[in-house]
């Protein structure tokens, strides 16, 4: 089938040629895919703002020999608040950039699609404080890491398996490490460990209502190390947020 219909979150969009754009999409049926949309940058374009980042659309894609082209788009969800608030924009960018980097192209990941959509919806509904200290952003990233198979080990030492008190966080070993296995780990406070536990256990809707804190920011910094270790790059959205 050269034509396929799918629902997708627009993860990012880059100018291509004179008036086209190169989109990175996370589709419900085919996972992450890249696609071209023709003429979208012209003011007379029939696409309008439908294919802007963070929108959810029903798309018809034409699969060419080397790339997919969007031939039709209907808007399903548009998160207006994300365009009006710098912290919300940053939070959405963290989730979308992480999804683009964590998941291989063309692998169906329906749960990730649902997670992205619900994450964007919660961010759009508003959260407390700066994005870097918001439990919602920490939860969004940790749940994406879980779906990618990189959930940090939080209940024992990730190196020797011993229980007891964790003293550091090691990206290379995949989570908390004990005093005997410190190695390259960075020190972590009990409050940051508690923030990570909450981020894993609580749904995004509950995390949205939780207040921001320095412990969440510390936990996000550590989790970002784990992300960078597996994805091979750091998140530009967190550089934007000056984390």
């Amino acid at each position, binding site marked *: 089938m050269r034509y396929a219909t799918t629902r997708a979150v627009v993860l990012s969009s880059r100018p291509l040629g004179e008036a086209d754009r190169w989109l990175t999409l996370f589709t419900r049926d085919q996972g992450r895919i890249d696609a071209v949309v023709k003429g979208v940058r012209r*003011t007379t374009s*029939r696409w309008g*703002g439908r294919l802007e980042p963070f929108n959810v659309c029903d798309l018809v894609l034409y699969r060419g020999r080397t790339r997919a082209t969007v031939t039709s788009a209907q808007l399903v969800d548009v998160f207006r608040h994300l*365009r009006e608030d*710098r912290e919300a924009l940053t939070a959405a*960018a963290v989730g979308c*950039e992480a999804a683009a980097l964590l998941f291989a192209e063309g692998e169906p990941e329906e749960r990730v699609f649902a997670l992205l959509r619900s994450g964007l919806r919660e961010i759009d509904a508003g959260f407390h404080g700066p994005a870097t200290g918001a439990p919602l952003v920490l939860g969004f990233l940790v749940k994406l890491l879980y779906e990618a198979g990189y959930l940090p080990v939080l209940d024992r030492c990730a190196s020797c398996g011993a229980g007891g008190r964790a003293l550091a966080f090691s990206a290379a070993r995949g989570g908390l490490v004990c005093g005997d296995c410190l190695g390259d780990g960075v020190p972590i406070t009990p409050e940051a460990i508690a923030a990570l536990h909450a981020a894993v256990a609580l749904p995004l809707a509950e995390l949205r209502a939780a207040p921001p804190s320095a412990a969440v920011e510390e936990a996000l910094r550590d989790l970002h190390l784990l992300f960078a270790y597996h994805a091979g790059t750091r998140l*530009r959205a967190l550089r934007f947020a000056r984390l």
Partner: protein
Amino acid sequence: MYSPSVDRLIKELARLPGIGPRSAQRLAFHILRQKPEQVLPLAQAIVEVKERIGFCRRCFNLAEGALCTICADSRRDGGVICVVEQPADIVPVERTGEFRGLYHVLGGALSPLDGVDPDDLHINELLARVDESVHEVILATNPTMTGEATAMYIADQMPARVRVTRLASGLPVGGDLEYADELTLGRAFAGRRSLRHEEE
């Protein structure tokens, strides 16, 4: 496959935006077929533009000196500044003939997805320009996610006494309502204006 100089020409042409290897090859062979007097002006124009054109020290538009032709024009209204993303965005605004103020080119738009933050743009220079003589700043960044975010950020930074406006969004002249997308039509409704009020 070709001689080194032809290979180099193809490689250099392929670095231009929108030019792939095939197009580069086609352009290279077109250049080779032309007489020297037909193609050397192109080479000279490229050298000249790189030697003589820089950025205006005030607005960051392209300039052939310290100031661009717009900033150097004393007839322009210095009380209004139109903020755009790129120098190319000035051209369509000038074509309208509706604007007689000055410009400020940001050099891009805020984009967390690309890691472009306020320090990467000429936002501080804009804030420094907005002195007592400036009474309005028009934000003419693109109506995209990044353009909107940039406009919101700048609006927050502006002194309260300055009027900050944003270009209207709506239906293109000559367009058909039936084909308008939901976002544009929504904006058009939100930004509708009273015809009766204007008559009064």
